[in-house]
């Protein structure tokens, strides 16, 4: 892969990137319609494919938060056309790396020493990109380590990036900017937390300790003394990412085992810890040769406050949803139905959101759920597609916590679907008053 040694950093340069994308997308439309003149059968798939490629290209050159947003959009499969998704999922794997001297520089700044003086061995070529940083291998006392290094200036550029991604994202989502600011703020908070590597190390240690008794889930050991504001050192975990794992044609039994580990990992956190690893993209997991699930990134943690947890999960795991009055009551608490809504609107949103909740809760409704279920996912996507086109949903609804909770759970479902896993969904259930 081509080594990329610069991030467009100033706002103008970044804007230029987006402008370029805009032009390219414009170009794609022209290309599409001129082709369509000759071939009226041409569908929008090719156009979407072209657009996705260009958007992905410029986002991955931008790195930092823009790449993160690409990753996020790719998790929300239910609101994007399919070809956008395929390209965006690529951003979860590799992005071009930064120059060697800058890595050395980052080390001397944090530790006053070059990497070769800190580790017995250090590989200047990075093995993976981690969206706001890159991963290097190192060796210390005979142990193989993974060292994550953050790109300089990432924290600085997040807010300005978000400002620029906003209109672009809104166009994709078709919503107005003003109403979505509260959500953008939530995203910004999480993204800024992710740039705090000291916090990440602290949380990684806490969460891996809290989750250590889960079956078939393993965590790397973290080294706080070899970590800093821009650097995290942890044990290297051998294993395959999801896609490579699936290429090895794992047995149904093994896929179930990994799927169960994922399910337990997420639901243990949601219901026992009330704070969840909210970044379920496949790049954060490894399947080890011992057939265990390795979790390697705790950058993004979403805490679930009581005033969200209780109304939301009472809808998911109790009979509340069967009682219209109680359901509307819960929807009000979650701001999915507003005070000023009239009777007609209440009726409308009640039905629309009830459908969403029922889809969300589907895996919880039976003890064992088979995620190899094209019908279920087709319903999810078509629901997403349907509401993304409805004028009624082009306004802010639902408390901000939904962004990450939906992303986490639908992300989890999407991974389980790819695994085609059959999972026991009763292992860690919601606790309700």
């Amino acid at each position, binding site marked *: 892969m081509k080594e990329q*040694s*610069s*991030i467009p*950093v100033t706002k103008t340069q970044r804007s230029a990137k987006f402008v370029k994308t805009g032009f390219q997308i414009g170009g794609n439309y022209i290309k599409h319609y001129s082709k369509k003149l000759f071939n009226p059968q041409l569908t929008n798939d090719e156009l979407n494919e072209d657009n996705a490629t260009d958007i992905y290209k410029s986002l991955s050159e931008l790195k930092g938060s823009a790449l993160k947003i690409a990753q996020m959009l790719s998790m929300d499969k239910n609101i994007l056309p399919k070809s956008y998704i395929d390209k965006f999922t690529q951003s979860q794997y590799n992005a071009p790396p*930064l*120059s*060697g*001297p*800058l890595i*050395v*520089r980052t080390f*001397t*700044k944090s530790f006053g020493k*070059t990497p*070769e003086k800190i580790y017995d061995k250090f590989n*200047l070529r990075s093995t993976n990109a981690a969206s706001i940083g890159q991963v290097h291998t190192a060796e210390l006392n005979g142990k193989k380590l993974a060292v994550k290094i953050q790109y*300089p*200036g990432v924290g*600085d550029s997040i807010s300005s990036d978000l400002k620029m991604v906003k209109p672009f994202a809104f166009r994709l989502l078709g919503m107005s900017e003003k109403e979505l600011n509260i959500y953008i703020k939530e995203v910004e908070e999480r993204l800024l937390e992710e740039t705090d590597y000291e916090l990440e190390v602290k949380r990684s240690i806490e969460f891996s300790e809290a989750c250590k008794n889960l079956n078939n889930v393993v965590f790397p050991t973290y080294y706080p003394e070899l970590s800093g504001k821009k650097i995290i050192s942890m044990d290297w975990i051998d294993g395959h990412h999801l896609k490579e794992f699936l290429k090895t044609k794992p047995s149904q039994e093994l896929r179930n085992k990994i799927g169960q580990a994922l399910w337990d990992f997420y639901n243990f956190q949601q219901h026992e810890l009330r704070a969840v690893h909210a970044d379920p993209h496949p790049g954060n997991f490894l399947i080890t040769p011992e057939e265990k699930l390795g979790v390697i990134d705790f950058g993004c943690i979403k805490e679930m406050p009581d005033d969200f947890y209780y109304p939301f999960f009472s809808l998911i795991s109790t009979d509340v949803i069967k009682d219209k009055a109680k359901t509307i009551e819960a929807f009000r608490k979650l701001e999915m139905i507003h005070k000023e809504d009239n009777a007609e609107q209440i009726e409308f949103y009640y039905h629309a959101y009830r459908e969403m909740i029922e889809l969300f809760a589907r895996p919880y409704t039976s003890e064992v759920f088979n995620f190899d279920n094209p019908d279920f996912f087709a319903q999810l996507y078509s629901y997403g597609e349907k509401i993304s086109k409805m004028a009624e949903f082009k306004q802010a609804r639902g408390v901000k916590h939904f962004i990450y909770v939906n992303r986490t759970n639908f992300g989890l479902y999407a991974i389980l679907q790819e695994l085609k896993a059959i999972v026991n969904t009763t292992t860690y259930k919601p606790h309700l008053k």
Partner: protein
Amino acid sequence: MATAQQIRNGYIDYVLMNDEKPKSVYSFVKKLKISESDFYEFYASFESIEKIIWVELIVETIGTLQQQEVWNEYSSRDKILAFFYSYVEVLKKQRSFVIYSLKTTKDRFSTPDALSGVKPIFEHFAEEILNEGLETGELAERKFFSKRYKDALWIQFAFIVKFWVSDDSTGFEKTDEAIEKGINVTFDLFQRSPIDNLLEYGKFLSRNGHFKEKMRF
């Protein structure tokens, strides 16, 4: 008996406290309690002290770089990047002096007086690295232009030092970005690019102009 080091430190201390040069060598040596001949044994003037401090800083930078194990594995691009990262790190130790010196020296744009000793050292250093790059094919050999690559790097040098002087970001992070971007752009221009190919094609067409008649449909 005073040493060069003492005089140098005394001078730095003086200019930073007073924000100007001592009035005369006479008044300066009196403060340091040394004789004038001690002073002249090491330095010809105040300006030469400043020049030497700058020279020492760049010599120290190049020295530490060449001791690094990875140095020999680096490409030309990486070497120049590494140079600037280390250089701003070394400059940090004398930041107040650097700011003072650039503020007071004459001719701030191309080559400030104080940097007149640094320029040949940097150019020599850069030229060696550029030649390596030209030999390995990392950089494009261009008639006339490849001799001027080092001038482009000197412009970067002046820019980066000035950027660093006015950088107020934590840990001078913005300077890091200025280096990473500026040097990469510069080296991208040094490499073979579509423009080279375009020029070659143009040359080819003009050399083979007699085909033009036959080419016409």
